[in-house]
């Protein structure tokens, strides 16, 4: 009996080894299988809605079930990674944008993906503007199939960043969607899609489980279709606390949660297996002021404010040290390649964007903001009272703490500043209508440096109704900046674009339309109990957070695999 079972074991081991040898190509075999468990913090109960153009579809419908044409790689300066499209080019007159499509891609019902589908998708936007979730309509007049794998988009005006906009679209299958009467109210419960997670296994009020597309077009190192993992499971957590408890317990593999005091909670629970990296490449959170009002229309006052803020405390206390103070030019690390060092130096020379209360007091004194009536607070140069509020959104605790620090900073230099905690709707409404003094607010984080400045400075963003769209909340505009922004997208000449971008940054530093505080961190934690292949701080090949809208998690998904056959069996 004993020898027989020993022989059996030996035979099994030999078979296993043999099968490994057969499959091995470079000596290691990547294990396949397993269910990756994902958490994205507080999450509403799931309902089945895999229409990628619904206002807020089931998570992963947009990058998981469906795929974009190209994926911007944020840590790599938002360079576009070929995906369903292999590349793009502009015509001589810059009025036609041509995408070449990936051949050999199949929809999960076996039909070929080709130019017809892409043309169909854009024409569907024209027929149903409510589907145009990416706001492409103002930029193109028609779409044309050049051949089966080439699509030409005819632009309405020269816009040389159009490839970012148009490549972010998720093509729909013409053969399945052309018969749908109202695609706006279509919930697409059994999606026909090309993505790696096109099979819907479970979607209910507690969990979403999507499984691999057996005929996915990208191949792994073993020559079989990706992804290596079988499924992705995302449980619903009604609050951050239960989500974090499950994360600390090691039940989750891929996490996008905000975890307070992460070192002593999440990391301390298992320093070997628990990891995080908060890449500081998000939109720059800034202090906005209404430059149509006194005293914020006075550059000297704005500069004094920027000297009064203790940036280090804001990031280390308000933001738990999860990010660092931003450069004075409003561009995060993601756009390092576009930084204008001259503008940074100029800011340093002017002493702005550096914590120096004495300099702030001196600047206020020099500009005439002194205590005229002896109430202990500085007044306006004409002697009237000066007091202002710093607005912040109720419940956004990191911002609230940051604003508390800043208003204390302002009080320290003799300014009567107080904090005004508002409900989100009111907060946003005040910013948009210009009925505020100062406020903390987010900035634009992607996909290009041009977008960052366009959303903050381009005068067209103030509508006829006086509403400030995007983040033009400070309402500071200049003809020169407008012209530079227009020029930038009217050319593909890199040198001309760089010159324009450099000048915009200089204008920004010289006029200080708002005060950049810190780049918004993206929450990203992972555990390696079961899976490996996640982006790490050392090898941050793509933005690691699964909570992205532009498809970067697909790149991570292509890399993820179990550590070993055992962990595959464990991850079910």
């Amino acid at each position, binding site marked *: 009996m004993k020898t027989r079972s020993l022989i059996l074991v030996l035979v099994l081991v030999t078979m296993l080894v043999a099968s490994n040898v057969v499959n091995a190509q470079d000596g290691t075999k990547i294990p396949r299988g397993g269910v990756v468990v994902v958490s994205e913090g507080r999450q*509403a*109960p799931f*309902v*089945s*809605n895999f*229409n990628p153009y*619904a*206002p*807020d579809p089931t998570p992963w419908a947009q990058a998981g079930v469906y795929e974009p044409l190209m994926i911007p790689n944020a840590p790599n300066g938002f360079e576009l990674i070929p995906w369903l499209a292999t590349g793009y080019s502009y015509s001589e007159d810059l009025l036609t944008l041509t995408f070449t499509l990936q051949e050999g891609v199949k929809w999960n019902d076996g039909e070929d993906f080709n130019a017809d589908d892409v043309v169909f998708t854009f024409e569907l936007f024209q027929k149903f*503007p*409510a*589907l*145009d*979730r*990416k*706001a492409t309509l*103002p930029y193109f007049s028609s779409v044309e199939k050049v051949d089966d794998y080439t699509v030409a988009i005819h632009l309405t005006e020269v816009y040389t960043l159009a490839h970012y906009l148009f490549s972010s679209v998720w093509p729909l299958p013409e053969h399945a969607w052309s018969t749908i009467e109202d695609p*706006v*109210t*279509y*919930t697409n419960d059994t999606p026909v899609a090309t993505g790696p997670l096109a099979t819907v296994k*479970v979607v*209910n*009020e*507690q*969990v979403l*489980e999507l499984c691999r597309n057996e005929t996915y077009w990208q191949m792994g190192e073993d020559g079989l279709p990706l992804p290596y993992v079988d499924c992705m*499971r995302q*449980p*619903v*957590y*009604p*609050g951050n*606390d*239960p*989500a974090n*408890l*499950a994360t600390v*317990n090691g*039940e989750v593999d891929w996490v996008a949660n905000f975890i307070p005091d992460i070192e002593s909670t999440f990391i301390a629970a298992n320093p070997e297996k628990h990891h995080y990296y908060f890449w500081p490449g998000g*939109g720059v959170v800034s202090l906005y002021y209404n430059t149509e009002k006194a005293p914020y229309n006075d550059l000297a006052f704005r500069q004094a404010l920027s000297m009064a803020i203790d940036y280090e405390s804001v990031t280390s206390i308000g933001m738990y040290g999860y990010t660092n103070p931003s450069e004075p030019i409003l561009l995060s690390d993601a756009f390092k390649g576009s930084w204008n060092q001259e503008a940074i130096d100029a800011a340093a020379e002017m002493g702005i964007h550096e914590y120096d209360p004495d300099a702030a007091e001196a600047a206020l004194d020099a500009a005439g903001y002194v205590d005229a009536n002896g109430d202990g607070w500085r007044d306006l140069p004409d002697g009237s009272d000066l007091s202002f509020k710093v607005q912040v959104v109720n419940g956004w605790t990191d911002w609230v703490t940051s604003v508390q620090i800043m208003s204390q900073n302002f009080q320290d230099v003799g300014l009567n500043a107080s904090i005004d905690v508002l*409900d*989100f*709707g*009111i907060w*946003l*409404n005040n910013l948009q209508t210009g009925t505020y003094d100062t406020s903390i607010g*987010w*900035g*634009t*984080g*992607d996909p290009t440096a041009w977008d960052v400045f366009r*959303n903050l400075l381009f005068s067209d*963003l103030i509508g006829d109704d006086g509403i400030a*769209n*995007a*983040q033009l909340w400070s309402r500071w505009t200049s003809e020169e900046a407008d012209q530079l922004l227009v020029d930038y997208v009217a050319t593909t000449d890199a040198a001309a674009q760089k010159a324009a971008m450099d000048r915009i940054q200089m204008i920004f530093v010289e006029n200080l339309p708002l005060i950049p505080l810190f780049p*918004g961190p993206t929450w990203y934690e992972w555990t390696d109990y079961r899976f490996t292949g996640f982006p790490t701080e050392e090898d941050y090949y793509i933005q690691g957070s699964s909570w992205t*809208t532009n498809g970067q998690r697909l790149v991570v998904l292509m890399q993820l695999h179990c550590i070993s056959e055992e962990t595959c069996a464990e991850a*079910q």
Partner: protein
Amino acid sequence: MRFLVRRFLFYLVAAYVAITLNFFLPRLMVGDPVQVMFSKFQGRMDPRAVESLKETFGFVDAPVHEQYFTYLKHLVKGDLGISLTNFPVPVSEVISGSLEWTLRLVGIATIFAFSIGMILGTIAAWRRGKFVDTLILPIASILAAFPYFWIAMLALYYLAHIQGWFPIGHGYNLRLKEDWGDRAYVSSVIEHGMLPMLTVVITALGGWMLGMRNNMINVLAEDYITLAQAKGLSDRRVMLVYAARNAILPSLTGFAMSLGFVIGGALIVEIVFAYPGMGFTLLNSVNGRDYPLMQGIFLMITLSVLAANFFADVIYVLLDPRAR
């Protein structure tokens, strides 16, 4: 009978008033669904895309009186409309998933807490100064006075996280398939429901128990109790049929109310135990300014409270001859 007809008509009017309030109250809140959806992406959504959202939600902009009549018309047909936060999924579909979990957990817990509370309260009053009255009652009252989330979190932390006796969250083991024919699934539902149920019952018990005990003590002082005892009836018969039957009447209305509120779910239970249910769905709809979903849930709560009250009236008539 006339009493019941009068009550019924009263509830009908109450229902109409509630339905109307239900329409107007959510619209008094600041903020609109498009704005809130935009905020969810904290600047990651292209501001230009707001246009397409407005296009999708166009019907929200109709004049209020028009919206009101459409709302009434749809209600008559039993159509609760389309959820905005889950657009274009119908409200009924959004609710259906959470509803069964809520009815099961909160419904059973409420019935348990009420029944146990009534029984213990009766005993506490009958045997005043004895074990139940001097030990269990104070403990239950103290537990009822604690904030629920504190007890729930403590139970979760100690019993589930540290001891590992209970699973940490969700209504069932998410690795299993939802299938009531599968024994493993059924036992995982029971296992996952234990701790939330236990905490709800423990914290709700004290109130019921105390109420019942006090009513009982009042009733026990009545002459007919003395008469019943003088007639030589058994203790049990006097306690249950003569005393408890009368003492339970005031608690019944409260019970009916709480049964009606079951539909609203138990938000804190759901958040602490990551348990599915209507409370969290309601919270999300309010946060998302999802008027149709909010209306749908409020309407269900209102109607079920009214129905439960009417039901309590009927029981009242059966138990208390004076009401006939």
